[in-house]
């Protein structure tokens, strides 16, 4: 090892003893070294052991887990042999962690200022009296607005992005030489994520810090890391420079992972990586990836490959790194997105002048005060959705995407405006008053299958519900139909008596899809259906949705904050900001010039898994709590704001070809 090696993990195995007394390995023989000033990305599917490895660098193991063998050194110190006091001095001091979910990692009962000052008290030589000034300085350094007033706030009074910045400030308080980052931007809006990553890049180079950046987001990794290690089932399967790993991955798993990412530059659906990784408790005889690998042969199944260095410098755990180019790169199996032209098919659903407000004046307020109501959460939405088309809804958190879906599903009543189904007549607002036919025709799939599938029911019971309700099926007929549905979502009849807890995330989401399709709906509402899934699984679910649509001519309304995903699956896209429509039109038109200023900002912040790619950050990432009362919804953040007119007048719709419309005061020719 070179003298500069700073964090040095050698042959580390981490595991636990199962109830039957077996030792189960979660990390297997992992070696990773990081030099000063270097940043290394750690990628892999959920459960591959990324967090476990990052925490092990701090000499920390979650309850139940322990180091089975191997060494963890930080600047020559053996972290696994340290006493509690010495560990405390290093943790949060020279070696600091920025955790996976800052919202939950800040203590809810302590003020922000105190929590950052606590790190100072523990890890700096400053006097108590200088703490406040230093905390303000740190909060300024992570570009938080009005740091002095933030001191006395509690964590829940900050937005997700601000909480993440506080976590960064807290880590910087100990003047660390090395940072461990566990998914620091997962769950944040694209613009916020891009801003935080830029901040981290700057800080790392300013302070010559070593960084271990854990993420399943290859776009983020490509932006901050020099080298990347790919993990699979508790092992490192590929290590190399960011360029090598992201542009020409020499391991079949890394290759599959990269091709499963939807990209803005592509028009088709990404390639799905089928199957799932082995559980830590499964015995693996050969290569852990063999079951999912298109190149697998006899040798792969019987002998575990070792990590070997290639001539080009990467280290690969695979027998056939030279055969990578035999793997498919583009998605050929999927039928192309059906093209829906204006005159084709009828109208599936019309949203007419829809306005939705959550603020309900309580009885008390009606009686005793006359405070003015805040502007409606969603306002002035006019969209006509055609049969068989997929309409994508994008926007940052708080843009009202889910609210619109809830109104369509009848879970919340619009304040004004109405819905028209099949071009026939008004749809009753409340779900409980809708006819059985209408209920059947509109189905919804939710973000998190864990919340939407009853854990106490098995799959047969879950699928039987809609089949009984809408088609009065029973007995053998019911069973046949359930199996048919499962086969349609590429699961077999042997899933019928399993429970949701026995399925992987992707399988659960497929069951949720099958349940929605059991009703033979005309319209399916998809609310962030792939956000909780790994990219490889996401690709499979997108593929499935598209195939079902091609077979049945179903209409989708697809909500996501991920612009690339929306681009991959939609025919038409609507961009929302603060519950108001900014832009709507065919996919190709929305994702290319002319842009609404907000669309431009959003697209600029999207990170591509390509080290040569630079995001374009044109607007800051403040979070707005409620829409402005008058004028353009985007007025407070718009980088191209014209002036007073944007504050006072609702922007006019600028109309382009193919029903492409941009709501902005900037004239057509300048957009």
């Amino acid at each position: 090892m070179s003298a500069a090696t700073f964090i040095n993990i050698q042959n580390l195995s981490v595991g636990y003893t199962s109830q039957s007394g077996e030792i189960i390995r979660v990390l297997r023989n992992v070696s990773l070294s990081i030099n000063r000033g270097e940043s290394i990305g750690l990628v892999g599917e959920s459960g591959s052991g990324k967090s476990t490895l990052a925490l092990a660098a701090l000499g920390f193991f979650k309850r139940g887990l322990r180091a089975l063998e191997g060494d963890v050194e930080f600047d020559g110190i053996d972290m696994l042999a340290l006493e509690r006091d010495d560990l405390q001095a290093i943790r949060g001091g020279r070696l600091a962690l920025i955790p996976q979910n800052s919202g939950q990692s800040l203590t809810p009962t302590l003020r922000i200022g105190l929590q950052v000052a606590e790190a100072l008290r523990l890890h700096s030589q400053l006097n108590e009296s200088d703490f406040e000034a230093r905390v303000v300085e740190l909060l300024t350094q992570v570009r938080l607005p009005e740091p002095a007033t933030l001191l006395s706030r509690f964590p829940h009074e900050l937005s997700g992005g601000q909480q993440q910045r506080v976590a960064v400030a807290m880590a910087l308080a100990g003047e660390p030489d090395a940072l461990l980052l566990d998914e620091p931007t997962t769950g944040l809006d694209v613009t916020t994520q891009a801003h935080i990553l830029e901040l981290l890049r700057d800080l790392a180079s300013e302070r010559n810090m070593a960084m271990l950046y854990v993420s399943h987001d290859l776009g983020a990794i490509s932006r901050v890391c020099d080298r990347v290690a790919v993990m699979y089932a508790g092992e490192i399967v590929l290590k190399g420079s960011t360029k090598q790993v992201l542009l020409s991955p020499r391991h079949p798993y890394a290759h599959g992972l990269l091709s499963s990412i939807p990209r803005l530059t592509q028009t088709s659906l990404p390639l799905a990586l089928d199957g799932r990784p082995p559980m830590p408790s499964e015995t693996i005889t050969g290569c852990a990836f063999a079951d999912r690998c298109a190149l697998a042969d006899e040798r792969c199944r019987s002998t575990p490959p070792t990590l070997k260095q290639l001539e080009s410098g990467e280290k690969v755990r695979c027998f056939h790194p030279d055969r990578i180019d035999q793997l498919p790169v583009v998605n050929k199996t999927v039928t192309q997105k059906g093209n829906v032209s204006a005159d084709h098919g009828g109208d599936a659903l019309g949203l007419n002048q829809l306005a939705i407000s959550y603020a309900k004046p309580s009885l008390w307020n009606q009686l005793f005060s006359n405070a003015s109501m805040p502007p409606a959460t969603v306002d002035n939405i006019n969209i006509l959705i055609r049969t068989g088309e997929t309409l994508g809804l994008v926007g940052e958190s708080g843009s009202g995407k889910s609210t619109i879906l809830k109104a369509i599903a009848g879970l919340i009543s619009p304040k004004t405006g109405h819905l028209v189904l099949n071009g026939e007549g008004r749809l009753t607002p409340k779900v409980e008053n809708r006819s059985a036919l209408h209920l059947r025709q509109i189905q919804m799939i939710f973000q998190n299958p864990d919340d939407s599938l009853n854990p106490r029911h098995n799959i047969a019971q879950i699928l039987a519900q809609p089949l009984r309700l809408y088609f009065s099926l029973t007995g053998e007929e019911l069973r046949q139909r359930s199996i048919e549905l499962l086969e349609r979502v590429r699961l077999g009849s042997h899933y019928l008596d399993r429970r949701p807890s026995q399925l992987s995330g992707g399988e659960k989401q497929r069951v949720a899809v099958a349940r929605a399709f059991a009703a033979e709906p005309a319209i399916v509402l998809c609310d962030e259906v792939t956000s909780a899934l790994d990219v490889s699984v996401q690709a499979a679910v997108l593929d499935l949705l598209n195939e079902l649509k091609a077979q049945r001519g179903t209409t989708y309304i697809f909500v996501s904050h991920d612009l690339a995903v929306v681009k991959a699956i939609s025919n038409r896209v609507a961009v929302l900001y603060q519950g108001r429509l900014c832009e709507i039109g065919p996919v190709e038109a929305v994702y290319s010039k002319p842009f609404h200023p907000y669309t431009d900002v959003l697209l600029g912040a999207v990170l591509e898994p390509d080290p040569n790619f630079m995001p374009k950050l044109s607007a800051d990432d403040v979070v707005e709590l409620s829409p402005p009362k008058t004028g353009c919804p985007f007025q407070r953040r718009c980088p191209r704001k014209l002036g007073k007119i944007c504050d006072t007048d609702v922007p006019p719709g600028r109309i382009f070809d193919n029903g492409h419309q941009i709501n902005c005061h900037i004239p057509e020719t300048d957009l």
Partner: protein
Amino acid sequence: MLTMILRRIFLGLATISIVSLIIFAGVEILPGDACTQYLEQDQADVELLEKCRDDLNLNRPAHERYTEWALGALTGDLGMSVNGEAKISDLVGARFANSLLLAFFALLVGVPLAMLLGVITGLWRDRKPDIIFSTIAIFAMTIPEFVSATLLILVFSVWLGWLPGIVLTSAGSPISEFFPEILLPVIVLSLVMTAHVMRMVRSSVIEVMASDYVQMATLKGVPYWQMVFRHALPNALLPAINVVALTIAWLLGGVVVIEVVFNYPGLGRMMIDAISDRDLPVVQAIALIVASIYVCINLTADLMTMIANPKLRTMYLRK
């Protein structure tokens, strides 16, 4: 914040009035009235009955009597007991003071002990201290109070002769006279109460100790006990406020079984006695008092939680 508090108080008062209506209506719907009940209808002497009805104003329409009763209750006048011998407020007052006394000592022992044991068992989860105390707690919770009370009487007063097994002091005596008779009931009550509150604190501590912010505090280098006291306990003990409040309400409302076993002159036994004496005005009064206690204590607990929990506090402050 202030409107919030006023609103809660208003709602509390509304609840009490509704409950009072229900209590009153309930008594009205019963066959017969307070006097026929008291005098056991068939054998009742018509004259006595009439006199009794006159005394209690039972001949007037129900709504007038309700208003009178409710207004009286507001000023602390709960009417006369059915035999016309005593003011209910005096009777209840003395009994209530006794219940208060019992509750006070039970809480004085039980709450700090429950918190301490809850925290200890939570922190040392699945290790010796937890296993020992949790087992005891489960016993204390599952054995019915009258069994544990009888057992304690057997051990401490019958065998060892250390403590009196029964309370002979009458209601209204000065506090000092209740010693040492009150000790055994206090022990039994605190045992049950400690077990319940401790289990709840334990699970809350375990949950908080597994939280991301406690892990973060550890990884920030915060020493263990500082982490426990600054980061974990304030969050773990917040939900305890409501549990303790419910326990207080339960104690004040009269712990019937304990009072009967120990012959303790508290509110619970008074209720039982009033029922067996068919003294409806007293039953009515006690029901109203117990309901009011529940409402007041819940209100206080909610307000305290609101003040102690920054999330709730800021929500109302900034609105």
